[in-house]
C-alpha cells in the first residue's frame, strides 16, 4: 500500500468559503471532502492525510505556504501527492500546481487536477496535471482520472504519452521506434491531408495570441526596434553568444539616426553576416525610421533597441525573452514594434 497526501483548499477541507480563505496551512487526518471519493477510486494507495491552506493565504504568502505545506507533506513520508481538483478556480489551481511542482521537484510524484485553461497549469513544473471540467459539476468524472494517474505514477512504471495516460502535455518529447519508415509515414500524412485531415507527428506547444488591435495613429505613437539578428556594438562588449543565447540586450539609440558599420556588428552564428556588417540598418532600420520620425509619419522612436541571437534558442527560452522585452516596452509606453527575424 502506497501512502498518499491529498491537498485541498479551505473550502473543500470544510473550513469555510471566502471568510476562511486566509487560513494558514494545516493538516487533517485521512481523506476529507473530495478526498473520500478519491480514496474510493484509488487502488493500492491510501490517503494518509489531507493538507490544506486558504487560497488567499497561499496567494499572499506563497513562499511560507509552500514551505509549511512541504513540511506537512514530508512528515507523512508519503509516496505521492494528489492536489485538487481545482476546476476553473485560479487561486486554488495555482496553489495545487505550485505545491505539486515543489513536491515533484524533490523527486516525489505529484498530480494536480484542474481545467486546462486554469492559469495554474503553467505553474505545475515537473508535476502532472489531469484536465477536468471547468466547475465542480465535473467532480465525479475527475476523481477516477486522478486516481488512475496517481496509480500509474505510484507503480513506478514509465508513463506513456499524455493522451493515453490522461494528463496535459508537459512539453516533453521522447524518442521511440515506430517500426515504419519516415517515407511511409510521410505518405500517410500526405494522403490524410489530401482527404482533408491535417495531422502532424510533431505537435507544437506554441502560444496563440489574438492579434493586437491596430495602432490608431502612428504619427503620435512611440515605436521601438527589436531584432533577433544578433546586432551589437562593435567588439560585442556584452558577449552576446552567436548561438543559444540565454538573454537579450538593450542598447541606447540616443542621438543616433543610423547604425554605422564602424560602430555596430552582427554576431548571429546562423547566417552569413557579411551584408549585415556592411550596413547594420539592413537588420535594424534605424536610418529609415529616423527619417520617418523627421517627416512626422512616426510619432517618436523609443530611445533604445532590443537584441538577441535567435539561433538554436528553445521556444520556451524565446518566449521568456519575448515576455521580458514586452514588459520593458510596455513600461516605456511603446505602442508599436518593428522586429526583424533572420
Amino acid at each position: 500500500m502506497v501512502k498518499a497526501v491529498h491537498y485541498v483548499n479551505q473550502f473543500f477541507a470544510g473550513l469555510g468559503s471566502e471568510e476562511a480563505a486566509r487560513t494558514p496551512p494545516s493538516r487533517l487526518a485521512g481523506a476529507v471532502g473530495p478526498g473520500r471519493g478519491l480514496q474510493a477510486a484509488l487502488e493500492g494507495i491510501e490517503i494518509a492525510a489531507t493538507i490544506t491552506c486558504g487560497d488567499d493565504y497561499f496567494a499572499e504568502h506563497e513562499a511560507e505556504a509552500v514551505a509549511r505545506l512541504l513540511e506537512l507533506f514530508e512528515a507523512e513520508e508519503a509516496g505521492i501527492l494528489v492536489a485538487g481538483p481545482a476546476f476553473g478556480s485560479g487561486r486554488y489551481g495555482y496553489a495545487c500546481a505550485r505545491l505539486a511542482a515543489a513536491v515533484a521537484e524533490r523527486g516525489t510524484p505529484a498530480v494536480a487536477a484542474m481545467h486546462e485553461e486554469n492559469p495554474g497549469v503553467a505553474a505545475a513544473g515537473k508535476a502532472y496535471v489531469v484536465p477536468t471540467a471547468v466547475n465542480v459539476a465535473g467532480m465525479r468524472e475527475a476523481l477516477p482520472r486522478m486516481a488512475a494517474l496517481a496509480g500509474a505514477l505510484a507503480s513506478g512504471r514509465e508513463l506513456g504519452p499524455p493522451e493515453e495516460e490522461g494528463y496535459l502535455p508537459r512539453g516533453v518529447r521522447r524518442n521511440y521506434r515506430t517500426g515504419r519508415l519516415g517515407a511511409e509515414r510521410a505518405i500517410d500524412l500526405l494522403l490524410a491531408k489530401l482527404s482533408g485531415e491535417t495531422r502532424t507527428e510533431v505537435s507544437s506547444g506554441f502560444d496563440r495570441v489574438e492579434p493586437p488591435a491596430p495602432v490608431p495613429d502612428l504619427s503620435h505613437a512611440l515605436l521601438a526596434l527589436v531584432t533577433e539578428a544578433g546586432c551589437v556594438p562593435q567588439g560585442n562588449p556584452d558577449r552576446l553568444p552567436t548561438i543559444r543565447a540565454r538573454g537579450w540586450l538593450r542598447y541606447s539609440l540616443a542621438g543616433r539616426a543610423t547604425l554605422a558599420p564602424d560602430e555596430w556588428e552582427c554576431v548571429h552564428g546562423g547566417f552569413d553576416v557579411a551584408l549585415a556588417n556592411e550596413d547594420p540598418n539592413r537588420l535594424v532600420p534605424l536610418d529609415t525610421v529616423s527619417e520617418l520620425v523627421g517627416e512626422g509619419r512616426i510619432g517618436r522612436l523609443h530611445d533604445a533597441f532590443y537584441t538577441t541571437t535567435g539561433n538554436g534558442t528553445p521556444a520556451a527560452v524565446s518566449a521568456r525573452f519575448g515576455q521580458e522585452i514586452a514588459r520593458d516596452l510596455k513600461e516605456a509606453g511603446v505602442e508599436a514594434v518593428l522586429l526583424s527575424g533572420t
Partner: protein
Amino acid sequence: MTALPTIATMVGVNRTLRGPAITHPFGLDEAERRRIVERGLEMLQAEVEPLTVWDVE
C-alpha cells in the same frame, strides 16, 4: 519582418511581413528599406486575422 514567414506563423506571429532575404530582412538599399518599413507601418495600422502574412508589394 522576416524571409521565413512559415516559421513566424508556426510560432504564432500575427503580423508577418515577408522580407527579401534572411541576411537582410529590411532590404539592401535605402529605397528598398523605405518600402519595407512603410509597408510594416501600414500593417501595424491594419486590422488583421491571426497569423496574417503580407508581401511588400
